[in-house]
């Protein structure tokens, strides 16, 4: 019997159930025979709104369900809060209960119909047959939604990879790279001989090791060039006089991303790879990491960091966007990419400041602060300036006198940063604003007013000023300031509650009925991924972070620390981090696409442009934001 013939021999209802299944992952990846097996063995049941579908009292789970119409709500009783929480929602095309049927145990969550609901279900033996015969079904059941997440990430990667033509992943541990056998020498070897050894082996660097093979320094052709040009020493001097001491080292278990970030930060092109006892086992160069890549992170960071003209800095910005494409192609996740962007932005900001100090030094030491997303190290290509200045008032000067010198300088820096693509802040949250160019005492007073006399308008600024970081200049004074702020927030329960209430207002883009809630301002059918997707996470996490003395400003790092402090359940936090990263990834992909089409960057997307899988995962991510907000609600009794 031919395949076409077979299809028409299947009863109409079997065919219609097959095509229903086909529209949803993981069934969309399953073969017709497996789908037919499912459809022919399925049972269709109806549950009215509020009916219990599955509960712990039913004992070991014997059926596997797919929602055909309607929704299922998972309920868990929260004993602390004395109320029932919705832990998840399952909508059309989604399945349950995976963990319980695979674990052959009762479900731990009460499954209740939310609205009139029809479910298809199969018996355990049919389920087992499908698991053993269909690879994609097995993959889905054993790895759950995370396998779908992988699929989304894979697609984001392949999309970005199309132009790159490389398959090396940034998560590859260094030991998997063909590590160069390092050329080494002792510290006493004359430079002339060291260079001869490099020449013989045709390498650009030599590692200086002690007797136990611990790397103590590195000498490169670049150092040789500088040495000859600046005549710092002779070729007969021992190499230790000119080597760069304490070279950057990583273990073989570190991954390519760690290596790339370390190189970008220090502008090195080589890293030593060492074993657990810090003995040298190999070298890795930036060229090893990105052999097939046209734009590379380290070189870009170095070019930005050493640019001598604003013009150069401006032209380098397009390379940053190409780099983001490349990084996504190399498997960097969204958390890594935003860090890369932030790192490069930091380098740019620093260089603009350095160039201006060279040209026109205000003569007063200061710390350049960044707020908001840059403060959290969560910048994307769409970014505006949020910065300020912290200074120590020199003796014999008033604060206003200091400002007289710093403000014109800051004005120029703000304008030049704008030329580099950091849009001027519409709210004037910039260092050239006299209200944000303050001495440490003034900042302290500012925060006292902010926290103790908090007004609703003040709270709007919480997302900006409570995520603060130093980009340039001494850090100690900021650390002291932030310590005092942190203590004040922890002591002030009322402020925490107001902050929590404010965070609670940031509703994720879901309606009560679990459809997408669109922004109404002009943009028909648009989702604002920043305000309706990321902000609910960022704001809620900030409240918990500040209340519990977490120092980090980065949202993902804050969540990690909150797990360590037992404020967040590790599983919950993992789900929230996944969800947050996914929204960020979809946002960045859409930025790259807008850039490609030459459009102005926005944070809006139309969910209709997403495929079924992305839509579903995006919805699930928003749902996680709702769960995080529920925690906020319970903790602060909002």
């Amino acid at each position, binding site marked *: 019997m031919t395949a076409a013939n077979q299809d028409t*021999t299947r*009863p109409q209802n079997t065919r*219609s*159930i097959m095509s229903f299944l086909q529209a949803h992952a993981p069934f969309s990846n399953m073969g017709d025979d497996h789908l037919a097996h499912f459809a*022919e063995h399925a049972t269709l049941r109806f549950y*009215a709104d509020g009916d219990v579908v599955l509960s712990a009292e039913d004992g070991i789970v014997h059926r596997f369900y797919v929602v055909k119409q309607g929704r299922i709500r998972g309920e868990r009783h929260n004993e602390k809060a004395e109320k029932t929480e919705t832990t998840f929602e399952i909508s059309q095309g989604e399945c349950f209960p995976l963990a319980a049927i695979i674990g052959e145990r009762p479900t731990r969550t009460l499954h209740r119909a939310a609205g009139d609901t029809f479910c298809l279900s199969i018996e355990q033996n049919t389920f087992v047959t499908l698991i053993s015969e269909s690879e994609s079904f097995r993959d889905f059941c054993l790895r759950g939604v995370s396998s779908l997440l992988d699929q989304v990430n894979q697609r984001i990667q392949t999309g970005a990879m199309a132009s790159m033509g490389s398959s090396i992943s940034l998560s590859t541990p260094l030991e998997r790279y063909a590590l160069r056998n390092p050329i080494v020498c002792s510290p006493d070897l004359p430079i002339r001989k060291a260079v001869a050894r490099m020449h013989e082996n045709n390498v650009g660097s030599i590692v200086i090791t002690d007797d136990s093979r611990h790397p103590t320094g590195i000498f490169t052709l670049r150092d040789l060039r500088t040495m000859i040009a600046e005549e710092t020493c002779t070729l007969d001097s021992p190499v230790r006089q000119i080597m760069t001491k304490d070279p950057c080292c990583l273990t073989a278990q570190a991954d390519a991303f760690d290596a790339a970030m370390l190189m970008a930060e220090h502008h090195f092109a080589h890293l030593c790879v060492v074993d657990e006892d810090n003995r040298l086992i190999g070298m890795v160069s930036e060229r090893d990491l990105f052999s097939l890549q046209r734009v590379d992170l380290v070189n870009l960071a170095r070019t930005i960091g050493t640019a001598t003209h604003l013009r150069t800095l401006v032209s380098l910005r397009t390379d940053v966007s190409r780099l983001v494409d490349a990084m996504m192609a190399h498997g960097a996740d969204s958390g890594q990419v935003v860090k890369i962007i932030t790192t490069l932005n930091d380098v740019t900001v620093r260089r603009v400041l350095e160039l201006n100090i060279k040209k026109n030094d205000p003569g007063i030491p200061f710390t350049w602060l960044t707020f908001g997303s840059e403060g959290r190290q969560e910048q994307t290509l769409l970014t505006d300036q949020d910065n300020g200045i912290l200074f120590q008032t020199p003796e014999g000067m008033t604060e206003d006198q200091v400002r007289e010198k710093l403000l014109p300088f800051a004005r120029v820096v703000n304008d030049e940063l704008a030329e580099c693509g950091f849009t001027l802040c519409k709210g004037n949250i910039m260092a050239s604003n006299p209200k944000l160019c303050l001495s440490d005492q003034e900042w302290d007073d500012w925060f006292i007013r902010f926290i103790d006399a908090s007004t609703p308008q003040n709270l709007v600024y919480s997302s900006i000023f409570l995520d603060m970081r130093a980009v340039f200049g001494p850090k100690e004074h900021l650390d002291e300031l932030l310590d005092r702020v942190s203590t004040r927030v922890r002591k002030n329960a009322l402020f925490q509650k107001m902050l929590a209430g404010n965070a609670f207002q940031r509703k994720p883009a879901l309606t009560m009925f679990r459809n997408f809630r669109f922004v109404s301002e002009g943009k028909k059918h648009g989702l604002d991924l920043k305000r309706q997707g990321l902000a609910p996470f960022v704001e809620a996490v900030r409240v918990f972070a500040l209340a519990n003395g977490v120092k980090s400003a980065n949202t993902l790092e804050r969540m990690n620390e909150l797990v360590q402090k037992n404020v967040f359940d590790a599983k919950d936090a993992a789900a929230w981090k996944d969800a947050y990263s996914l929204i960020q990834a979809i946002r960045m992909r859409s930025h790259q696409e807008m850039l490609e089409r030459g459009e102005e960057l926005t944070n809006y997307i139309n969910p209709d442009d997403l495929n079924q899988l992305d839509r579903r995962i995006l919805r699930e991510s928003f749902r996680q934001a709702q769960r995080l907000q529920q925690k906020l609600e319970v903790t602060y009794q909002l």
Partner: protein
Amino acid sequence: MLEQIRQWIERRRTGRTGNTAPENMPNPKTPGDQLLSECRLIVLDLETTGLHPNKDEVIAVGAVAINGGAIDLSDQFDLILRRPELDITKTVLIHGIGPEALTQGHETEDALLFLLEWMNGDPVLAYHSAFDQKFLEKTLKAELGYTQNHTWMDAAELLPAFFPNALTDGKGLDNWADHFGLEVSARHHAASDALATAELVLIALNKAHKNGLKTLRELHDKLRYHRRLKDIHRM
């Protein structure tokens, strides 16, 4: 299912099943103390060449079974008896079954015998059941000489009986399907309409259970009472 029919026909032809004569077919069950949560109900839909039982013919039979309160898709009936566009009267086109499997001239008979056996005398529900009942009984009598009466219940009465306040745009299957947001895969395909009707029946049975109705008799009585009430209103 076609494989089932093929096997069944094979068995019958080789005389391995002895009880296929109409008089040996399962006896229709009467609505008694069978529990709704356990019994088997047939939900059926016919496609016909027209609206008059006297001159029109059945084209296709689609049916699903409700077992223990759920539609069991491994227990369904989907058969085209005749294709009017081919204008071959008295010929069953059982799709996918080669002519060699069919005894010449007995196709309709075979199919109807199989239907009777599959129905197993269980109560039948249909949307506007009077229509389907007339056609099916006429056909069974003409082809097989079978005259026993199944218990029929009308899904079109069942729904307003349990949802008297539902605001539907009309009394048709489509109106109720829309009311409950059902998606009907291929409207006017017998099997597809039977499934949609069965889904509505599940909704009604869920409500019946909540109203304390437990047995088939109670359901049957409720429908009769509802019908009488309506007749009174009409007078």
